């Protein structure tokens, strides 16, 4: 494989990696998720801000980022190095809000367009905000730009993030610390990052009393060695009075000399660039795999949530379908109404097609012409719709309690208003199912009776027989009803089913079994459909989280490719 081809492939693999990291989501608040989100963000930033631009423009000037703690004197150092007041200093913290990039006027080509740090807007004036201020100054060395970054430990979070991004884009770090600061935790965490990436680091011990300098320097050098940075040059800049608002030239001379040397020698410069770049690629691949691990965990968690929905659905659906099969739904008010009607011999009248007696007809006129089966039909409607609502509510409870462990913190307890709304919707849907089921019962009776046509026109009788068919169907699809529960309850139910079937047999002059089975099956199917709709709704919620296996795979694939091509590109 030719080198240029390998190079092109590396670039395309990096672009794929960036894309796949960009696509991924870490929706759950699992342990380590915050870190993974942060890692993903910084990796994407690093690819965009540093790796890709640097790979494509390997000859661009070195970008030396001057970073460190608040108040360590970064800006003062930059001004001292350039020998001009190019960036503002002060006693107020944090001082540097907009990062300032000082470059030699001859290098303007590289910085004015978005070749370096393409995502950061430029501001030519003194505009505040997170914009990069470019300062061309002849005092800056050719081939090396100095970037005065915000504090890594600033109280202002945006400042801190920007500092992190800029350090991620550096070819070279000039890490500024002070006698009071050098043991702070935050900057050392940042330095540990640099050591991992093998970025070239120079440490400047600033603002140190000359008398303490030796002791502090010794301790700092030991700390650097312990943390894998023993090869980094360590400069001290003694605390001294300003000359024309600048550090005296002599105090910054060693640092300036070192920078000039770097900038002047193309070969050394290339080595520095390459070392940082390769180190970054190495950590990038490592981080990408870590992100993929975290995503994979989330994918597992999301799968567990899906499984929870399925299990809960299977459980509730099984229970509800069982209730239809065993006929336990024939209970309470429906049964009581049925017994009441039987006691008044009303169903016999529907069976034999007898007109109601004069007394009954009179009373129904007085009551506003209510047909005798109305109250039974109402009880049936209520029973079926309540059963559907309960099944949905159980599914919802079941899923919620399972998710409470598998997706802790993600699915919030619904507030009173949204719960009331969902209850309303649930009831409306269940009511519609129940009404449709009742209509089916009447249609079944009509079609069964349609053969002799004797019943068309007698709506009361049809409705009555439909209600009887519903009683039989609620009692279960099989004749006699399997039944469960206490002995007397089963006996009552079985007798009611027998009575209902008997009424139907006499009215339709045929075995009502198939009709009952059809209506009971329809109830079972409606129960299933209603629960399936609930399940789909939950699954849609899970799907909306957007953690899928293919995300993990695409990250790993791109990371592997980058890793394979990495050493080969080292030669370019």
């Amino acid at each position: 494989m030719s080198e240029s081809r390998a190079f092109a492939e590396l670039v395309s693999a990096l672009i794929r990696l960036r894309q796949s990291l960009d696509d991924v989501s870490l929706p759950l608040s699992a342990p380590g998720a915050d870190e993974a989100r942060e890692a993903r963000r910084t990796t994407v930033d690093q690819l965009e801000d540093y790796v890709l631009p640097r790979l494509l423009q390997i000859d661009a000037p070195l970008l030396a980022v001057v970073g460190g703690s608040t108040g360590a004197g970064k800006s003062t150092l930059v001004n001292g190095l350039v020998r001009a007041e190019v960036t503002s200093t002060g006693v107020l913290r944090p001082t540097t809000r907009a990062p300032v990039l000082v470059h030699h006027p001859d290098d303007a080509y590289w910085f004015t367009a978005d070749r370096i740090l393409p995502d950061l807007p430029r501001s030519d004036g003194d505009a505040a905000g997170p914009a990069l201020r470019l300062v061309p100054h002849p005092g800056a060395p050719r081939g090396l730009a100095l970037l005065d970054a915000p504090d890594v430990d600033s109280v202002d979070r945006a400042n801190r993030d920007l500092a992190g991004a800029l350090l991620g884009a550096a070819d070279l770090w000039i890490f500024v610390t002070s006698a009071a600061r050098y043991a702070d935790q935050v900057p050392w965490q940042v330095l540990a990052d640099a050591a991992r990436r093998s970025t070239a680091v120079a440490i400047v011990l600033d603002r140190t009393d000359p008398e303490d300098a030796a002791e502090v320097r010794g301790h700092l050098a030991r700390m650097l060695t312990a943390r894998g940075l023993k090869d980094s040059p360590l400069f001290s800049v003694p605390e001294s009075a300003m000359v024309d608002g600048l550090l005296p030239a002599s105090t910054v001379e060693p640092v300036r000399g070192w920078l000039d040397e770097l900038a002047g020698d193309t070969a050394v410069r290339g080595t520095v660039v390459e070392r940082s770049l390769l180190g970054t690629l190495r950590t990038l691949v490592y981080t990408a795999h870590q992100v993929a691990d975290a995503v994979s965990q989330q994918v597992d968690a999301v799968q567990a949530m899906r499984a929870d929905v399925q299990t809960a659905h299977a459980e509730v659906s099984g229970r509800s379908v069982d209730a239809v099969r065993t006929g336990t739904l024939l209970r309470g008010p429906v049964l009581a109404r049925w017994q009441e009607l039987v006691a008044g011999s009303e169903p016999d009248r529907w069976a034999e097609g007898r007109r109601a007696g004069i007394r009954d007809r009179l009373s129904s006129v007085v009551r506003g012409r209510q047909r005798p089966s109305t109250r039974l039909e109402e009880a049936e409607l209520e029973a079926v719709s309540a059963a559907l609502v309960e099944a949905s509510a159980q599914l919802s409870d079941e899923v919620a309690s399972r998710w409470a462990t598998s997706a802790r913190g993600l699915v919030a307890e619904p507030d009173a208003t949204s719960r009331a709304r969902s209850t309303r919707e649930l009831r409306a849907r269940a009511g519609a199912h129940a009404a449709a089921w009742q209509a089916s019962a009447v249609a079944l009776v009509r079609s069964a009776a349609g053969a002799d046509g004797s019943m068309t026109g007698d709506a009361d009788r049809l409705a009555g027989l439909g209600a009887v068919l519903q009683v039989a169907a609620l009692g279960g699809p099989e004749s006699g009803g399997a039944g469960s529960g206490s002995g007397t309850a089963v006996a009552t139910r079985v007798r009611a089913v027998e009575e209902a079937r008997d009424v139907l047999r006499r009215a339709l002059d045929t075995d009502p079994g198939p009709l009952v089975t059809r209506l009971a099956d329809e109830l079972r199917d409606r129960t299933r459909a209603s629960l399936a709709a609930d399940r789909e709704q939950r699954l849609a919620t899970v799907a909306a989280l957007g953690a899928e296996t293919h995300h993990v795979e695409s990250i790993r694939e791109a990371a592997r490719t980058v890793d394979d091509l990495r050493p080969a590109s080292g030669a370019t």
Partner: protein
Amino acid sequence: MTGVEGVTGVSGDEVVERLDGLHAAVEAGRGRVDDDVVTDATKAAERARERLRLSASHTVVALAGATGSGKSSVFNALIGLDLAAVGVKRPTTSWATACAWDPSGAADLLEWLGVPARHQVSRMSMLDTSAEDLEMEGLVLLDLPDHDSTEVSHHLEVDRLVQYADLIVWVLDPQKYADAALHERYLRPHATHADVMFAVLNQVDRVAVPDRQAAMDDIRRLLDDDGLQAIPLLATSAANGDGMPELRRALIDRLHAKEAARARVAADVETLANRLADAGGVEAATGADETAAGAARETLVGAVADATGLATTPRQVARATEGHARRVAGWPPLAMLRGGGPRSDSAVTPVDESRLDGAVRDYVDAVGAGTSGAWAAALRRAARDRQPELVDRLTSATADATRAAAPPGWCRALGALQLLLALAAVAAVVWQLVGSPPEVGGLDGGWAGAVVAVVALLVLAPVAGALATAAARSGLREQAGTVRRGVASAVDETVVAAVGAELAAYAAWQRGLSAARGT
């Protein structure tokens, strides 16, 4: 103690009241509100109570700050001895050092603080007791390790002691006052503690005189952003003594007010109460007031009665009861003919559990209106747990209701009397035919007796029937009432009681938190 009203205006009794409120809220919230928050609050409340029990005449002042901010220099300057190690190597102080003025009463306090004796020094035991020292009597000064160095053990010690100190002096320096480590980890979370904290800009000698005011203003701005508008801010220089008398004065003032410990506890209680309130909510339970809850309970009882099918049972039972009574009281042959009437064996209808479930959910939603998250869930859980018991109790109540009432004893007596009359009529006829009964009023005695018996029977039968019907009906009304009461008591003793207990706990939670917040 209670008479002293100073900067914070919290009396001793009030602090105890607030702590008790917090305790009550924690007890009410346990098992209902997020466990982690409740456990934390329990521990912190325990610590606060402990502090109140210990010496009230001592005030624990902790010097906290970043590495190199000069905590130890300030410490040394305050105690007038070079006791705490001062150096250029960072971090310097690895453990907390304590200095107690008047150590006699402070031993328990120091033990509670967990500062070992080898890191303690007492000021009054030394020979050089001066007027200045007498003024500082009761002070326990702590020099804490740094909170921002690479030594993580130091942070842990700071985190621990910051919870114990009565007064915390944050020592800032011109380089480090804007560090995220300080503001995000310590100052912002202690926004309620502004009364028991000081901020001191040390090493002010390093800032050029014209810039000092700007620096102080900038720190003030950052502190205000942290929510610490009330925290006093002083400028000191331990190196040349600038501002040290003012700091000493400020500490002495707090010392003499002798209320720093109480103020600290009050601030802690407020923080904890706020955290608990965030976790569990303190919104008014609008559904739980007496009228609303009463109406919801009525609806529930009605809906549960409907779900059992009891609404129709009484009528059906009425027919059965009536028939039974008439049969018993009626003339035997007629009563036998009646057998084809309405069925007497009225049946048990199992409760419609779906409707019951819906009714209970509606009830919980109604009485729980206003409660949020954890508490709403607790209400639902409590109701759901008692539902099976409710179903059992309803089943037995229903069985009672559907059993036809036994007719009163006199119905049977009437029936027996009619049987006797019939037998007497037969006996009289037999006597007439077989024997020779005496004549009564010109008629054969046997015939006369038979006629009298039959007439009595004819008169008695309808009367007995009417009496039996009336008795059955009145008995039934009573029974319907009994059944309704049975349902109501089953509902009251299960779901309503359980939900009521949760609502009572919620009320205790609200009361406790409002007491803890002093509102």
